[in-house]
């Protein structure tokens, strides 16, 4: 699936809920499916410090695609973390850099990515893009070797 397709899939999933409680229930479930960061990485090095909730993020690159794992101490934050991972996981740096997170707006969760929410999510997205940039650079360099 392309990034856009996953985003659309999530939008479809959320379209079933017309109540905030159902949405949050679903997010809580999503949180449980989050590809968990390995304990060895759950350290300050991989910590993204929001003032209210904290997120740990790890990325690995197989030379083609990036895959992420993460965790958060707040389960709703973790649910959103997993949405973002579902969207960006197993894509190339180029694909990740070319895409946005507009789907969050469509499912009514845009506010969670606002700089005024000190939950670490905005920094997390930035961090994901940063990984993509770094790996893109790496593969360009390697192809020049």
């Amino acid at each position, binding site marked *: 699936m392309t990034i856009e397709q996953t985003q659309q899939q999530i939008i479809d999933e959320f379209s079933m809920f017309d109540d905030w409680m159902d949405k949050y229930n679903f997010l809580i479930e999503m949180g449980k499916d989050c590809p968990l960061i390995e304990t060895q990485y759950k350290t300050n090095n991989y910590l993204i410090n929001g003032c209210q909730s904290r997120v740990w993020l790890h990325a690995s690159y197989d030379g083609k695609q990036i895959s992420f794992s993460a965790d958060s*101490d707040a389960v709703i934050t973790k649910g959103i973390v997993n949405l973002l991972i579902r969207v960006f996981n197993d894509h190339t740096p180029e694909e990740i850099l070319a895409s946005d997170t507009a789907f969050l707006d469509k499912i009514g969760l845009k506010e969670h990515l606002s700089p005024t929410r000190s939950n670490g999510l905005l920094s997390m997205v930035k961090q994901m893009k940063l990984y993509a940039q770094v790996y893109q650079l790496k593969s360009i360099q390697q192809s020049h070797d």
Partner: protein
Amino acid sequence: MENSKRFDIQNIRSQFPALHQQVYNKPLVYLDNAATTQKPQIVIDRLKTWYEMENSNIHRGVHYLSQQGTVAFESARKTVSTFLNTKFTHEIIFTKGTTDSINLLASSLGKLLVNEGDAVLVSGMEHHSNFVPWQQLCIERKANFLVVGITGTGEIDIEQYKLLLEKRPKIISIAHISNVLGIINPIEEMIRLAHNYDIPVVIDGAQSVCHQKIDVQQLDCDFFAFSGHKMYAPMGVGVLYGKEKWLNAMPPYQFGGEMVSQVSRQETTFNELPFKFEAGTPNIGAVLGLETAIQFIESVGIEQIAVHEEKLIRYALKKLQEIDRLRFIGNALKQASVISFLIGDIHPYDLGMIIDKLGIAIRTGHHCAQPVMEYFGIHGTMRVSFAMYNTFEEIDTFVAAVKKAALMLE
């Protein structure tokens, strides 16, 4: 006399326009009053009248508006002075808020009293605004920063306090009521003990001034600081009360405007109290709004308010206890207007976000009081805080919402 007044909650609520709104199609239940209170119409109207009919810059103006404004401003000072029962009107300094008041003190009283090797004492339950200014002063002056601990029930450890007094701190600064725990500290006793050693005591009254009668002469505190916006007044105005002898001895904090008396190239002499500490154009409209807020509080009756809020907190404590795995943070007998709690290992942010969608405004997190979090070994709490306009029904709605959210998050 005061007690014979009827406390008409519906009438009170009707005077606060912000309470009558819906968020996410649910009626707003506003329980974040320790962060800031809503404003009665009469306070909002005072601002409006000021800006529509009276606005001008005060002091030194010869013209009508300026004269009238000056009279109004100085009479607001008198109102605050009477409200706190200060000895002199010029012991009331208008600031931006509690944080501004305490920073003024840390700078100015710090310069007067704190040198290398001296000590300053605060408690472990202070708001950052009454912790960091003193800590940074001590770092700058190479002085000792003493922090009196708190007990498991969230009270100041008075035995430790007595021991720390032996170190003769130069200044003691203590919250009257903790913004996290709601605990009322025994400040009368603490002040008395400190005065045995002639140590001046600063009281951070941000969380007490609109919940109980304050009489600074009876308390005998040397300074008392609070914010207007936490007591039904507009934002951008606060008060620093200080005993005349201290205010006279302290050097000014900020320079410019009315606080200046004579300036030459080489030196400047400063105006007398209270102007000495009021540099720049004051927030005149907000000061008048503060006066109106005080008049409003007095018209309801501060004792009546205290009684009502006491009932609310007892009721809320009882109702919350029904919730499985709920524990209170801080558990002292003397608690006012604020309750902090946790449920199992539910993250406060999760719970806050869910009940927000049910129309309920509470605060979650460390409440700008990380040291207190350290004592309890936690990252944050859920905090509800009451004002005169809250009702038992709101507590029911709130508790029901918490139960619902807790179920979801289990």
